């Protein structure tokens, strides 16, 4: 809402500067977003009359004019095409500073020039705010305009415009009078309502217009007034200036009046060409199936049966509250006008305007709710202005169909409740004073106040709304700061929250950096991740109204985020990447409204570890990432998990991938990413990635750790080296060793793995260090030797292992 300070002062006394007013309004709930000074920089521009025009001796396209600015006559060279003798124009004098630069005394091809003729654009003004014939070329004014008048005064730019940022509840401030009321409440000064008196002819409206409301639930009131002998002309300059300040383009007197009253009183009006209304009958009804209308913007619109229309017996003539129809538009030939001033159901207008993607100053106000008790007043105001400016004559009386009257609300306001909510006792006298300043009626009984709220404040319907009024006008910054008393509470994280934080901690300690990516994906990602048509991950949650195809589906895997960020970093020449993300993935659930959201961890590494002058960089391979996973499991005290080969995950390398299993369930995957996938992401190096269901990990987290006694007796260590077939898994060798070693085996660790020379093709050599220990005694060599032999035999028997010396 743009508020002209000059115009506002017509309705309320403002003893403070615009800046101070803005500050006070902002601090009481009607925020002034911006203060505009439309005349700033437009000094030294005055009216002048072109007395004579002579061709420039040396330039075809230039002429030189003698311009009378009252105090003197100046010579100006111009290339403006539309100059005429006798024209009143605006002349920027030497010293004026226009957006295009400073005006100086100049010589144009040898002829001296003392200024510049101005167009709207050259003065930095928006041409759209001017009548159509003034939008291009130099501005031209009526022949009786005095000479030497300052442009700011002439154009009504000696003003300040406050731009209000209104919250949706304050629809009452969508008018000058409404803002004036708010200013009055804030400053404590008086509101001066315009005096509304309608001059009427002897012709009466009865029988000239009929109004039928078929849907009173959607149209609570419909007022019509008829105006005869209409002469369509431009509206008076003062009205044009006010509309311009409000950001509305002047069109013609009748349309301008409807817009003026809209801005002044907040009541949207519509003007029909009366003679084009069939039978002079207005029917307010819902649109019929398939019904169409050409709206004022010359677009054919298909209406749905939910939409309210204003119709005559033949056809719809307006989309109620949203936009008028082209057929009954006011034109230069219009002689009789029907002014509509109605109240429509806010939700219905909101839906229609949203469905048609058509928002206007009118629809916006109807959708937020206007005052049904203001309809007649606004229609009368329009008639008054039309008559005063000689644009038409008012037929006596109005049609006023008011099927759903609304009374002022009477609301109880308890001072002690007010004190409880605000936290400070506001004296009853001050509460009363605030209510009165707002223009509300106040009565007092034993239990507090009974406040009568006028229907223009549709946002106030309960005690809490009144308490808010008290709080904001008392001043939020006059309210003290206290801390809640009452019982103390325990602030702590749940186990899941603690574990999640711990996961992030472990991942960073392991050298991976956290990323946060959007939850959206392009459906193409399903192909990019190499998922076949029948893959269950193709069941995705789809966004109905995404901003772009990139954001069409919700992620059902976190891996895309990792690969995508690797890809972007690679494009920026960032190498050696190690990322992880913790977030939710989304999977649709049959028969449920909401998808399943699963907290998930994903990680990916590519390239080499940090290297220094002492230590070389190590390739971040499968075992690097597996080490991260093992560290994570160890930190979370999860011991019973299993890593088993997984050959069927289409996103991963079939021979370099494993499932992460907890209690027999696969809860994640770790492996080298399939080369097709890395190619799709334009990643030229191997990528290792993992994804794991964090909720499963959280529920598997081991309990509190228990200390186990440090060994009292020495351990005995033995190495065992075997040659086995290449496809024997390390885990299988481990299992056989453990099974045969019994209780005394303390630990196994692989310390060497070798393939190549001296080992036959298809075989590998593995060397393990075994540590034996007993809690209650020193082991003897014989004991250990027996076990060791048993192990060796078992490895030979079950794996065909060959022992190495």
């Amino acid at each position, binding site marked *: 809402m743009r508020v002209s300070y000059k115009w506002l002062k017509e309705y309320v006394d403002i003893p403070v500067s615009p800046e101070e007013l803005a500050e006070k309004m902002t601090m009481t*709930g009607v*925020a002034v977003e911006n203060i505009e000074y439309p005349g700033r920089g437009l000094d030294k521009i005055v009216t002048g009359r072109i007395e004579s025009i002579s061709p420039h001796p040396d330039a075809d396209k230039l002429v030189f004019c003698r311009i009378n600015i009252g105090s003197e006559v100046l010579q100006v060279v111009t290339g403006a095409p539309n100059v005429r003798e006798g024209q009143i124009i605006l002349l920027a004098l030497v010293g004026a500073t226009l957006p295009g630069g400073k005006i100086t005394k100049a010589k144009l091809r040898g002829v001296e020039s003392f200024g510049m003729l101005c167009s709207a654009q050259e003065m930095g003004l928006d041409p759209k705010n001017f009548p159509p014939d003034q939008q291009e070329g130099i501005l031209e004014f009526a022949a009786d305009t005095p000479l030497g008048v300052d442009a700011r005064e002439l154009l009504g730019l000696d003003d300040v415009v406050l731009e209000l940022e209104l919250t*949706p509840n304050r629809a009452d401030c969508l008018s000058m009078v409404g803002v004036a009321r708010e200013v009055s409440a804030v400053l404590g000064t008086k509101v001066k309502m315009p005096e509304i008196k309608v001059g009427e002819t002897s012709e009466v409206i009865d029988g000239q217009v009929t109004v039928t409301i078929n849907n009173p639930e959607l149209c609570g009131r419909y007022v019509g007034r008829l105006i005869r002998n209409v002469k369509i002309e431009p509206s008076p300059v003062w009205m044009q200036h006010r509309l311009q300040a409000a950001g509305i383009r002047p069109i013609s007197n009748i349309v301008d009046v409807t817009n003026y009253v809209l801005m002044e009183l907040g009541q949207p009006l519509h003007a029909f060409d009366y003679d084009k209304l069939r039978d002079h009958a207005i029917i307010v009804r819902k649109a019929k199936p398939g019904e169409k209308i050409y709206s004022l913007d010359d677009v054919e619109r298909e209406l749905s049966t939910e939409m309210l229309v204003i119709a005559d017996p033949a056809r719809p003539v307006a989309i109620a509250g949203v936009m008028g129809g082209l057929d009954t538009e006011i034109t230069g030939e219009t002689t009789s006008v029907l002014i509509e001033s109605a109240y429509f159901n*806010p*939700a219905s207008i*909101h839906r229609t305007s949203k469905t048609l993607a058509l928002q206007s100053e009118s629809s*916006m106000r109807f959708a937020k709710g206007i005052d049904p008790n203001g309809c007649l007043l606004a229609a009368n105001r329009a008639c008054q202005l039309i008559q005063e400016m000689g644009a038409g004559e008012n037929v006596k009386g109005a049609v006023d169909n008011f099927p759903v009257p609304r009374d002022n609300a009477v609301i109880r306001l308890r001072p002690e409740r007010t004190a*409880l*909510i605000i*936290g400070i006792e506001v004296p009853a006298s001050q509460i009363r004073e605030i209510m009165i300043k707002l223009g509300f009626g106040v009565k007092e009984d034993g239990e507090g106040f009974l406040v009568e709220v006028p229907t223009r404040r549709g946002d106030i319907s309960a005690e*809490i709304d009144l*308490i808010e009024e008290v*709080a904001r006008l008392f001043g*939020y*910054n006059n309210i*003290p*700061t*206290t*801390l*809640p*008393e*009452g*019982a103390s*509470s*325990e*602030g*702590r994280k*749940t186990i899941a*929250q603690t574990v999640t934080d711990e996961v992030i901690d472990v*991942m*960073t*300690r392991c*050298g991976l*950096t*956290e*990323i*946060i*990516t*959007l*939850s959206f994906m392009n459906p193409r990602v399903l192909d990019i991740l190499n998922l076949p048509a029948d893959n269950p991950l193709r069941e995705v*949650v789809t*966004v109905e*109204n995404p*901003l772009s195809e990139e*954001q069409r589906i*919700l992620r059902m895997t976190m891996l895309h985020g990792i690969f995508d*960020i690797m890809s*972007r970093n690679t494009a*920026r020449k*960032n190498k050696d*990447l*190690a990322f992880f993300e913790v977030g939710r993935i*989304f999977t649709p659930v049959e028969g449920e*409204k*909401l998808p399943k*959201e699963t907290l998930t961890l994903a990680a990916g590494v590519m390239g080499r*570890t940090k*290297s220094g*002058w002492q*230590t070389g960089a190590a390739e971040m391979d499968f075992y690097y990432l597996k080490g991260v996973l093992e560290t994570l499991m160890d930190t979370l005290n999860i011991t019973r998990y299993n890593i088993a080969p997984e050959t069927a995950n289409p996103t991963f390398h079939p021979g370099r991938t494993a499932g992460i299993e907890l209690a027999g369930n696969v809860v994640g995957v770790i492996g080298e990413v399939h080369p097709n996938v890395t190619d799709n992401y334009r990643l030229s190096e191997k990528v290792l990635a993992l994804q794991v269901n964090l909720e499963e990990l959280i529920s598997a987290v081991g309990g509190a750790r228990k200390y186990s006694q440090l060994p009292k007796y020495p351990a005995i260590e033995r190495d065992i080296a075997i040659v086995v077939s290449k496809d024997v898994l390390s885990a299988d060798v481990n299992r056989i060793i453990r099974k045969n070693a019994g209780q005394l085996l303390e630990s196994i660790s692989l310390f060497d793995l070798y393939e190549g020379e001296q080992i036959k093709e298809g075989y590998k050599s593995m060397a393990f260090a075994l540590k034996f220990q007993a809690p209650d005694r020193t082991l003897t060599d014989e004991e250990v030797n027996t076990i060791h032999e048993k192990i060796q035999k078992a490895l030979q028997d079950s794996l065909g292992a060959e022992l190495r010396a």
Partner: protein
Amino acid sequence: MRQKLESIRNDALKEISVASDLSQVNDIRVKFLGKKGELTNVLRGMGALSADERPVIGQLANEVRESIEREIEQKMSVLREAEKLAQLSRETIDVTLPGRPFQIGKRHPLTVVLDEIKEIFLGLGFEIAETPEVEVDYYNFEALNFPADHPARDMQDSFYISPGVLLRTHTSGTQPRVMEKRAPYIPLKVIGPGRVYRRDDDATHSPMFHQIEGFIIDKNISFSDLKGTLLVVVRQMFGEDRQIRLRPSFFPFTEPSAEVDVSCIMCNGAGCRVCSNTGWLEILGAGMIHPNVLKMSGYDPEEVTGFAFGLGVERVAMLKYGIDDLRLLFDNDKRFLAQF
């Protein structure tokens, strides 16, 4: 004999004094005190002495031995010390060479800020609640007192999944979701952090961002408690000399409602580019929980009251770290993330 002993002593002491390393000193020991050493040789001649002289010479010989031994000991300790120093000096390294690099990852700056805010509220006795990101209309709007078909819903343009199901536009749904489960329990102190989604994508808006909702429900909770709590939080977040300012605003689920400004953390209120010369930075929205919201989720608004607030995490992170472009937070450039 006496003379001989004296001359041995003199010779030994002289040699010790000029010895320059431990092996020389050792040689001196052997030469004078060894089994075949000079002193031993002299003592072998003791048999030839008279009974009177023997004890006298014996004592002298002992004195000579002791003084040589003492001298050797002293010399050796000096030499050992020098040796050690020389050794240390030979071991000098270039301490200006870079250290061995450890690969440590970083938390995302949004996580760092979220963690900090969570800690502040945990300290104030709040618990942390997590609620769905894909939400039904009821919890995102209706239970928060948003009327159907009301322009207030347009403030938050939503992504829809299906009719009545949307990506939550704010974390405020935490209020009804938690209240419904816990009513009529008091005191209820909860924060709800998480991702939220709005149909906006430009230089200053991301279609996904993070908020933290917070609320308290108890007997006698007032707007002044809201002010006091926010002041504590803002000071922990941005420093003890911060001020806050509340401006009346509107949210369907709180009343009275406020926009909360903090005195500019860059210019301390003097006015600068960051605060558009106002001295204040808008940091969060807050208010007293609307009685309708309490009622719908099972609390009696005549019995208890509450306040609620919502904080944009990206905004805090950008202010805290001086990040001037929102998009950096979701670009995840390695060089950017390494800075936190």
